[in-house]
């Protein structure tokens, strides 16, 4: 059964590492839902956080293949673990009319999203939170007319080591 898996890949910061990782997944026929590559507290180490929709068996194979890359230090599939904090960030532009403005602003308040730019015909807001919260926010704003949004993809960090 295919389900969402979040995989944290800790790598040595060398040229082309992102291409190696995404290339490896593509080469073996796996689709990537989202990928983030970012520096860590150690300048020589990068973390790449991947989200894939795959079966447990396929994720086991992906994990092993990722581990095989020379520059990979550690691979963790956090999907079945609960000691992880997972967050995502979104910037979203929603259509405003005289009529919808109060309702939209109401939702923004409830979700504790932050308005960035308010114009006569649209509102731009940002929101950080668990992926499920972001999904819900987008879903509830949809009827008002979403002009555009950008999501960061998932971030994750272990609560304790």
């Amino acid at each position, binding site marked *: 059964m295919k389900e969402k898996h979040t995989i944290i890949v800790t790598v040595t910061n060398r040229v*082309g590492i992102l291409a190696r990782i995404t*290339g490896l997944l593509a080469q073996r026929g796996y689709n990537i839902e989202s990928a983030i590559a970012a520096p860590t507290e150690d300048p020589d180490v990068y973390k790449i956080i991947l989200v894939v929709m795959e079966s447990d068996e396929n994720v086991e194979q992906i994990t*092993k293949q990722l581990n095989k*890359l*020379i520059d990979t*230090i550690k691979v963790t599939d956090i999907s079945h673990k609960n000691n992880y904090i997972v967050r995502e960030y979104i910037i979203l532009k929603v259509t405003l009319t005289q009529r919808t403005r109060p309702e939209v602003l109401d939702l923004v308040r409830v979700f504790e999203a932050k308005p960035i730019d308010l114009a006569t015909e649209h509102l731009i807001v940002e929101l950080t939170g668990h992926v499920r919260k972001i999904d819900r926010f987008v879903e509830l704003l949809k009827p008002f007319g979403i002009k555009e949004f950008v999501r960061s993809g998932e971030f994750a960090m272990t609560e304790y080591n």
Partner: protein
Amino acid sequence: MKGAEILIDTLINEGVDTIFGYPGGVVIPIFDVLYQTDKIKFILTRHEQGATHAADGYARATGKVGVCLVTSGPGATNTITGIANARMDSIPIVVISGQVATSSIGTDAFQETDMVGLTRSITKHNYLVKSVEELPGVLKEAFYIARTGRPGPVAVDIPVNVSNGILKNYKYPAEVTLPGYKPVANGNQKQIEKLAQAINSAKKPLLYTGGGIISADASAELLALLDKTNIPIVITLMGLGSIPTDHPTFLGMPGMHGTMAANLALTECDLLIGIGVRFDDRITGLRDQFATQAMVAHIDVDPAEIAKVIKPQIPVVGDARKILQELLKKVQPRQQDEWNERTNSWKNQYPMTYDQSAESDILPQYVIDRVSALADPETIIVTDVGQHQMWAAHYYKHRKPRAFLSSGGLGTMGFGLPAAMGAAVGRPNQTVVSISGDGSIQMNIQEFATCSINNIPVKVVILNNSYLGMVRQWQEMFWDEHYSQTCLKRSPTCPPKCTGPRKDCPSVYIPDFVKIAEANRIHGYRATKPSEVDEVLKTGLNQSGPVIMEFMVKSIENVYPMIPSGKPISAIIPGRSS
């Protein structure tokens, strides 16, 4: 010190005595350093693909890392097939390519190709060296990565300004620092214990071993295990030679063209012990119906191979030799029993045979048989890809490891001659016989010139059936004899829908391989009748220097047994008549 000098110094420090390659614009600085050293032998091939296969053949025959040096652009892209071939068979080679200057990278400069991008999925690891400061460390890593763990090809792309760059405080690095790369050597003791117990209690154990035994140099340990336990064994194409063919518990090669005994044993065993194998689709047939009676143990140095195809109940990650040494201490002696009788009875019931006396044409199997009888027992056999490869696997009497070199995973036609050349350079005291087909040999035929000029004494056997025989066999068996583009004699005057040899077929085969020999100033012989086979082989094998021996064999002959592609082992076809 200049980057090019650092490169050559590193190679010498890594113990490299031979490089196969081809020069070009951006590698002139490196070739200039080679011009001035006598510590490295350079073999100038006639094509970069030949150089890459030669480095591969050298590595297979010697166990050392093979090295290939080429220029950027077309030089680099010509190595791709060779690299992919080494990758599929886990062969340690380092391919060094020149690159345009770092300032020109990305501008589509003359002879620029993205070598790192092109080879990413077919190397174990690859590098673009961006500064001369990085060069020593990268080269040290490249050799370390190529030969350790599961061996494989490493590509190093060196821009011309890095070769020309000056490094003031060059020192050959003492060690590598790779936090993400730590191959596991020793197997987990508990798992080995579990495996030993499984062996001790199994009624129908079966060993299934492959190239991992060869690359771990574990033949002696495998033989010791067989001596102690008498477990029946099947060996893949990549593992042939790890024990002698005439070993009493050897059942042959398993898989698509495996022996009946090997395949029946796979189907019936209750414990399958895979060592240094990857449960390739050419072995398993239809995966769901593979070894359904068996508990599976899988020993491999590459953790990603475990459960990639078949999920084992007993996985053991580590070096085959070390694990076999541990296993030997833990298993109880086992005598030949009913299971051995049963597996041996299959060997007797379904022998690999042919009947040359009933034929006026030379049978390809007969030629291999005679090579086996007449060649020196220490001979290294190298094959190309196709029917002749399967016949060589079955009918040649393998005696030693690193003496049967074949393109297993990638199935690369054109591998044979250059790989044989590499093997002959690496082991000059051994006879090297390349067994090829008339199709395969033409794919790197330019290397006869390299053999001739350098007096590399490769003895090339060409089994000429005038067909791309393996594909033709599939067309005969599964495609209603639609011999589409598989006849190498076919000309525009032939009937458009040919279904096999007829009386009015073109009589002449092009090219004339004996004349190819002549043109390369080497000896060439041809046998057209069974009675000429021995004479040609005796003359050719005893001739000094490279030789071509062409055998005009029966054109329509099939490799049996055969499991049709995608079918389970039970669908095996034992032979033509059944």
